[in-house]
């Protein structure tokens, strides 16, 4: 049965928005402990698919499953704690680093905050540092740490480096690779095929709302197009 071996799966998912089909019958699986890239041209439905996975959007037809159970059978807030999301450009929610980290988990201790910062390569940052003074790369890694603070088993990454310069992008990539190596499941939307090749174990290629290719990233014809 669909979804039994996967953390998240989609079963014949359709999304129609304002009469236009955004996703048309996508069936796919996200394997645990791996990084799955969602690739494809602009407007293919990648970001919509990502948002379906934590119920920021709802399919018009079909089912999204978490551990084989339809998402609506879970409490939606629990789904979002288990399936975290990091947005395209960093959005800071607290005035200081520690306040930001506590947004989703107000009881986070200072020791836990320090440990989280270590996981995203920000070990040298003071908890009291003002978030407004962080660089783009630091801010995006803080967003990663904030998502991790809630303890998700899956992290959805919506073009997490597209707003960053090359050096900052590499720092975020290093963190994502380390988190997946630690057992976290990641789903990455990326326009950058080379980045998808560097980070992803698996790839789902979308084109015009349909699934064109699914399998190991190393064997992907679409990703091979990136030289």
């Amino acid at each position, binding site marked *: 049965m669909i979804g039994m071996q996967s953390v998240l799966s989609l079963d014949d998912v359709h999304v129609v928005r304002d009469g236009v089909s955004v996703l048309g019958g996508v069936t796919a699986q996200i394997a645990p402990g791996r990084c799955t890239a969602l690739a494809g041209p602009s407007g293919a439905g990648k970001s919509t698919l990502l948002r379906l996975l*934590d*119920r*920021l*959007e*709802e399919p018009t037809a079909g089912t999204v499953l978490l551990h084989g159970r339809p998402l*609506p059978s879970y409490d*939606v*807030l*629990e789904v*979002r*704690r288990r399936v*975290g*999301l990091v*947005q395209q*450009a960093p*959005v800071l*929610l607290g005035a200081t680093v520690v306040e930001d980290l506590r*947004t*989703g*988990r107000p009881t986070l201790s200072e020791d836990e905050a320090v440990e989280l910062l270590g996981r995203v390569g920000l070990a040298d940052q003071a908890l009291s540092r003002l978030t407004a003074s962080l660089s783009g790369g630091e801010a995006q890694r803080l*967003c990663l740490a*904030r*998502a991790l603070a*809630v303890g998700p088993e899956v992290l959805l990454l919506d073009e997490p480096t597209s707003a960053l310069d090359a050096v900052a992008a590499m720092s975020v990539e290093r963190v994502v690779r380390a988190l997946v190596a630690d057992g976290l499941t990641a789903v990455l939307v990326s326009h950058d095929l080379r980045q998808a090749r560097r980070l992803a174990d698996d790839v789902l290629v979308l084109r015009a709302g349909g699934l064109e290719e699914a399998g190991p990233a190393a064997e992907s014809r679409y990703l091979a197009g990136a030289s």
Partner: protein
Amino acid sequence: MSPSVPSWYGVAASVLLVGIAFFLVLRERLGLGREVLVASARAAVQLVAVGGLLLILFRHTGLPGALAWVTAMVLLAGRVAGGRARGLPHVMRVATLAVATGTAATLGLLLAAQVIDTSGRVVVPVGGMVVTGAMQGASMTLQRMRDEAITGRRAVEARLALGLAGSVAFAPHLRTSLRAALIPAIDGTKVVGLISLPGATVGLLLAGVNPLTAIRYQVVVMYMLLGAAAVAGVVAGRLALRTMFDDAHRLVA
């Protein structure tokens, strides 16, 4: 007739001021000429009609008639406040309920504590001021919430993605909206008498009432405006918050 009340001739003469405004907006090419004329004509027609109706109301209907009049004002104010925040779900209903609650709480307290008289001559004008205060509180809260839902969308979604409920995810934006809505009422209260001399005091002074008596009324007016704006603003904010998120805690506004 008191000499301080303009005659009908005086009213006609004041039309010159509309002419000046009209001339200025034309000269500055503000594109508001038609609006100046329509607004001025509308004000005259509305006020004459209202004057006639109030005459009937004060003479014949007593408190029930006055309260019916206040209810009509609440309905109209709800539409105005809601119209300012189009885009929020069910905003007309939310705004009307908020203005109604702010008015009922404030006017109810003034009547129950016998701060004001129950005659139509008192309830209607005081009710009008209370409804205006409530309308401004509700209108500004809802407008700002609508704007926050647009400009703060990414921040709200970032909080939702952390597993926070819609009401919690929007809480900082609600606070910002309520602060923005209440600051004018608070500032108005701060500077009253020093910078502004509000309508109630002006009216009483023009009518020849002793200034110390006039300011007693004004103190009550300022406190009730503050109260009405606060109650209506908070009720509007809370009610709107419920309509802005669906069952799956998604921002639908």
